[in-house]
């Protein structure tokens, strides 16, 4: 983190705590909001908001701060989402890891693009995620499942992304920036 040359005093404990909290902020925020979204707050479409939030969060931080969203944190987030919902355990761990791998693989291109290109990338990622989730659920149930819940989930994810991203961008420049500690 500290790449500037020069001599300066040893970081104090407080400073190091500040760096650590900024470093952990994306992962903890992702997990915390997931738990909150599983609470009975009575918001319509809550079941769809959980995967939408996890997808947007993993996608954004994998592009802009991969050090704060390492693969094991993505795996843990997916597992938490799987256990909070009733789907097959491991499915969202797999989906989020694929999203993470895709975002990491293209981050040099994506991070230089404007907001709309990144959003377009997210549309593709969310479509793939909803399709994979639907397919695995259908195969496990061995039954044709109505595609509407998946389409609704996709729509919620794509629609919520600009709103979430505006918050993420602010955090990226402030709360989640260890270099500003």
């Amino acid at each position, binding site marked *: 983190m500290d790449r500037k040359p020069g001599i300066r005093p040893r970081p104090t404990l407080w400073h190091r705590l500040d760096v650590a909290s900024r470093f952990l902020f994306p992962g903890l925020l992702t997990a915390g909001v997931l*738990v*909150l979204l*599983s*609470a*009975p*707050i*009575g918001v319509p479409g*809550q*079941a*769809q908001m*959980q*995967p939408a939030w996890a997808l947007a969060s993993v996608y954004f931080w994998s592009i802009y701060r991969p050090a704060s969203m*390492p*693969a*094991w944190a*993505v*795996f843990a987030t*997916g*597992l938490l989402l*799987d*256990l*909070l*919902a*009733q*789907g*097959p*355990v*491991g*499915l969202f*761990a*797999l989906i989020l*890891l*694929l999203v*993470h*791998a895709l975002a*990491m693989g293209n981050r040099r291109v994506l991070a230089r693009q404007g907001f709309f290109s990144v959003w377009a990338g997210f549309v593709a990622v969310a479509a793939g995620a909803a399709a994979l*989730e*639907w397919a*695995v*659920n259908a195969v*496990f*149930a061995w*039954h044709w*499942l*109505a595609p509407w*819940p*998946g389409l609704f*989930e996709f729509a919620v994810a794509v629609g919520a992304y600009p709103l979430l991203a505006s918050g993420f961008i602010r955090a990226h420049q402030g709360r989640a920036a260890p270099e500003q500690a």
Partner: protein
Amino acid sequence: MIRLSIQARQALARLTVPVLIVGSVGLLLLGRAAPAVPERARVALSDGLAPLYSAVEQPFWALRDAAVFLRDAWGMRAENARLRAENERLRHWYDVAMALDAENAELKANLHWVPDPSLSFVTARVVADAGGVYARSVLLAIGPHHRVQRGQIALDASGLVGRVTEVGARSARVLLITDMNSRIPVRLEQSRARAILAGQNGPYPRLLYLPDGVHPAEGERVVTSADASAFPAGLPVGTVHYSAAGVPEIDPAANLERLELVRIFDYGFGGITPPEAPGHMPVAALPEGTAALASSERPF
């Protein structure tokens, strides 16, 4: 910390994602092969989160109460008129019900009717709608010294909600009748035809295996049947409703979209097992060995 060369660390970093992907696929398959493992993890997580949910819930309950109060205050006049009309109608039905009740009591007295045992139940608050996109279930917060068991039956104020499928120390999960894995033996109240109610993850579960020639009427009441000895007979499930494609479905009586409190009934053995066949006597005087065999063959 172990010091690794830069190359080794880069190779490890490149390996992490594939290894974790293989791990999640392994978890998916493990969950298929041994469903008890993820279930135990889920119960542990729900137990841990149940107090947190209850705490988070408080301000939202306050907000919701305030919203309900405002809405009620807004439409008070119209509501009042509606209630007065309804009261008028209900008063008539009250008289009818009292007359029928008296007649029923008299008939039962003449028949030497054995009264149904009174049931024990616990009331629990729904703390999370834990279904996800492709499942329908709710999480209940229950005290640490509860007697809730798997297979017990959950009802809300107006009808059947579902069955308890997982029980932890502080939480229990109820599989709703709308879940795709839910299959419930039911009976149509008028035609007495039996059927299976199969959840479809949508708001309306479907009626399967209706006998040939039975066409349930729109709006006909559907109650549980004691056929599979999993439910007591006669719990209200809902009313028949035909989908646009002409498939008979059920409009659940319970308010499954907004569950707040449910009652978990312990029907015990007397409630959920079918009555013993006439002529079946308890095994008493048999030689040793055969008695043990016979008793081990009995279901309970």
